């Protein structure tokens, strides 16, 4: 499960992300954050963290350096 989710994030990074304009307001980027979070905290907690990160990556959200806790 964890691996599958990481694979999805990786796929996003090498696929669509390359050809879209840069969008992410954070460092590390949302996809990188997701990979780290999944790796560190597993599918459930890591996935939740990644989702929360994605949900704050919008013009009214925060920005800047925001590593996986």
């Amino acid at each position, binding site marked *: 499960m964890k691996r599958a989710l990481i694979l999805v994030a990786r796929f996003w990074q090498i696929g669509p992300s*390359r*050809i*879209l*304009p*840069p*969008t*992410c*307001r954070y*460092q590390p*980027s*949302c996809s990188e954050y997701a990979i780290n979070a999944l790796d560190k905290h597993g599918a459930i907690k890591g996935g939740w963290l990644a989702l929360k990160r*994605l*949900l*704050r*990556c*919008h*013009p*009214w*959200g925060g*920005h*800047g*350096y925001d590593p996986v806790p």
Partner: protein
Amino acid sequence: MDNQRNLILAVVLSAALLFGWDFVMTRFFPQPVVAEQSQTASSGASSGVDTGIDASGAPVAQAAGPGVEAVLARDLDAELAAPGRLPINAPEIVGSINPVGARIDDIELKTHRQTVDKDSGPIRWFAPAGTDVQQFAQFGWVGDGIALPDARTQWSGTGELTQETPLTLSWDNGQGQTFILTFSIDEHYMLTVEQSVRNDSDGSIALRPYAFVNRTSLTASHSTWNVHSGPIAAIDNEVDFDWNYDEVAEEGPVNMPGRTEWVGFTDIYWMSALIADDDFAATSAFRSTGNDTYRADLLYETVSVPAGATMTRSTRLFAGAKESAVLDAYEDQGVEKFGLAIDWGWFRFIAWPMWQVLIFLFGLVGNFGVAIICLTIIIRGLMFPIAQKQFASMAQMRAVQPKMKALQERYKDDKPQLQQEMAKLYKEEKVNPLAGCLPIFIQIPIFFALYKSLLLAIEMRHEPFVLWIKDLSAPDPATILNLFGLLDFTPPGFLSIGVLAVLLGLTMWLQFKLNPAAMDPMQQQIFMIMPWVLMFVMAPFAAGLLLYWITSNLLTLGQQKYLYSRHPQLRAQAEKDAAEKARNAERKG
């Protein structure tokens, strides 16, 4: 150097995409092939093994014996012209019941055409056994020591089955039992079959009522990874999409455990399903009956019928189009999970509400193309504040431009460091020109949902937009290479680019040109190629999907123009940047 390598990589990848795409498309996204076979052809026919359930109820493949028909190719027209057929005439269904075997084996769907051509005939959904479009339903009993009706039984009855007038067939086995089938039909696609046996003999008898649908898989639509076609069943309140025809053929009889609500076969747009009597538990099974024919059984428990008593099971047969409103209405009438016969898949939570909005808009404007455009306007409208905010941030950015320039100068050889310093600067100044990942991310499921709706929803089948677009659920027919069909050849897969695909490439290219996000030269170059790659990639998709994308691009373009006019200093900046980039590129070149 690095940039050049990346560029080459991008070109190679694009080429791979282009040529690999055709392969992937035909493999994973075959065009829906609907049962629209010519009605007169009669080759490659198949048998109609019709009994094969032993008294214990386990479906067994029977060798030759009473009730097993020989493999015989039959002509559809000749079959339907056979005397004695009892007509069915309902608002959406026309057809007939075959008194031999009491089979429902002739159903045409009046309200759906075979092709987009207005003169093309109705969809033939059920056809007699042995014809090349075979699909029929039969109702029967199994039991030991009793003469039972089979596929060759001549039933007696007269009349016409309409919404107002049910039709009754009966057969006396000469041993004291009378078998009675009463058919009725509603205004859509549902037949109800009351299957009774009256025992006038002296002793009690044990019988097991059953019903089945038997169809050929040769006229079935292809099952793909995201739309299932083939055996389908609702068991213990869950819809089972797991089995494919060839899997059933390989595994032999597949007995479905649990209580069956309904069972049958589904195409993308059409379905035949037997719905079990609410009051009696039923099980189901799928199996191959040879020659690419398959059978779905609905089996009730064995019941003892005492002397003088009558046993009745009321089974419903759905034979028609999977119109979501109709299926939902049946679900409201107690057919569990019937709405889920449409395979929305994982994205149901987003696809279904979006579909409801689209249907609502269609009701308002009366044209699905216009409805799609309205949907796009709504979605872009919801996204507008994001773009507005982004432009406002960019305007603020101008204030920190000098500091940024200084940073860029200082770290021009250390890109990661530069990025970090920039992030720090954004933080200090509390600005960030980027819109974030969420706005992009939420558009993906919307796009996929629309893709899926266009693939699945019969409501959009043969729905026109304007001019040459007569079917939004099919690819754009105006392929450019053969001069819109004037030249008599079909361009090979990946070259059949329609007008819509070119419009898509063009609008996307314009949009990328106006994109305010800062990009490095390498990305800039990819962005000049991408629209044209996507033109090829998207060409084989449904016209409605391209219509959504083109509208979305145009609205984004308009939005950018508008926002630039609100922030003239940004426009000046953008023009200056562009000029600078051009100069740089020239110097490099």
